[in-house]
């Protein structure tokens, strides 16, 4: 089993939604859903849902293996700045041409498979990003 079912289930909101924590004390926003503001420590926060659109801050094409399969490599890992102004780390998928990747590329969140307990185990889903141009096609 790659992940604990209860750990994953308990945090399902953060896997299936892009939740942003807004601090009423210092005014800063952060990711993901948190009980305290990571900037000032205040508990006076509210949680809002992102619309799921943003731009690529920067990215890497990675060959670093962390599971037994090479089938998913290379992957694209990036930092995405949401339109709400918060950065999130994420995998970028459905990139038809890796040379099209560049900072500033418009991207949108989609629900995809994170991993699975091969060969007959659970499948873990969560949010990744795709280039917006793919969704428009």
């Amino acid at each position, binding site marked *: 089993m790659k*992940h604990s079912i209860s*750990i*994953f289930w308990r*945090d399902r909101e*953060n*896997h299936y939604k892009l939740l942003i924590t807004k601090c009423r004390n210092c005014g800063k926003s*952060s*990711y*993901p859903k948190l009980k305290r503001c*990571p*900037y000032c420590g205040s508990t006076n926060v509210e949680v809002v849902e992102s619309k799921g659109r943003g731009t690529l*801050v*920067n*990215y*890497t*094409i*990675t*060959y*670093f*293996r*962390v*599971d*037994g399969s090479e089938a998913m490599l290379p*992957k694209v*890992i*990036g*930092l995405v700045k949401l339109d709400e102004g*918060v*950065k*999130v*780390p*994420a*995998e970028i998928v459905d990139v038809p041409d890796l040379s099209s990747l560049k*900072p500033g590329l418009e991207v949108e969140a989609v629900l995809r498979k*994170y*991993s699975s307990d091969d060969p007959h185990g659970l499948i*873990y889903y*969560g949010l*990744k990003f795709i280039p917006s141009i793919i969704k428009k096609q």
Partner: protein
Amino acid sequence: MWGDGMLKAYIASVEMLKIDRHYDKSYVDMALEVIDAVLNGVGLTPSELDYIIVSTAFNSLLTHQVGSSYILAQYLGVKNVNVASVEAGEASGAAALDYAASLVKSGKASKVLVVGFEKMSEYPSWIVNREYSKILNYMVEGIKGVTPPDYAAIIMKEYMSKYNVTREDVFKWSVKMHENASKNPYAQLPFKISKDSYVKSLVMSDPITMHDSFPVGDGAAAALIVGDGFTNNAPKELVELVDVESSVNLPLYLREDLTVFEATAKSLSKLTSKHRVSVTKDMALNVYDTYNIYGLITLESLGVAERGKAHEVIDEMPYLNVGGGLKARGHPVGATPLYQLGELYKLMTEGFAGMKYDGEYGIIHSMSGPDNTSWLVLLRRCVR
């Protein structure tokens, strides 16, 4: 915080094992080897120790052993000793030194053995990579497949773009580290590399290649930290463990600027405000460089170089990472700060890697991930 009136802590001895893939040694074998070397060197028996403090980050994940501090005490045949393991990710060894020095300075103990080790070669690389990636936030980063070299790659691209620094400029760090490691008998990669060897190196997370990153290896190092009473028979040149300071940074994705290590800078600020010491180019300095870009940013965050200019000053720093850094000496995680300590201690006393440092202060910098937490250890030469 340590205030006036506290006792002082000194380094009595440091011993290191050559970093390698020691398939023939368990973590117990490695740890006992350096512990015996330290104790034999100073003429102590295990039963005379007040504390044994263990530093390891991955032992429970990679060797299935929890509580290695009392396991080691059992192998040493000692019962009347205090034991504990300290874990702060890749900075565990620095935290262990803080613990040891605090015990001695408070007067609670006078002979504290710190032993750091990591057994990184028990599994194939992909499993080690998976476990190592847990230095990041598992729930936010790890579960999505985001790994440490991915962040190093993104930081490196941001840095090169922001400061108009070339790939070759960043790689100067790796070349210098390998040159230093070629003179270090404990280094895992004791050989020189050419200034363009990254071109043929395997890509980990583009542009990070194997030659931009540390090697995976097993290692152990031990240090004996003592109080004033034990120094009566010590050699003329002593090294004082003056202070340890640390800070925490935001996770990378919440940082406004990806190209500065604020926890490193904050730790230095805390240290300098107490001890009026600044980092200079001619100081003995041993910094974390899990990736060469991190070495450069660390120098800038410590104020040795202007932002984006660290690659221009590293050749002006004769006592920078004399053992070859994590890049070429190696990075057996829980032991790494003990290797840093050993290199500086020897450099300040008997000499190391063909050099001897006669300055007053030396600083060790340790961190976990890209500055998620950063630690500084201040050493000072004392002449009796």
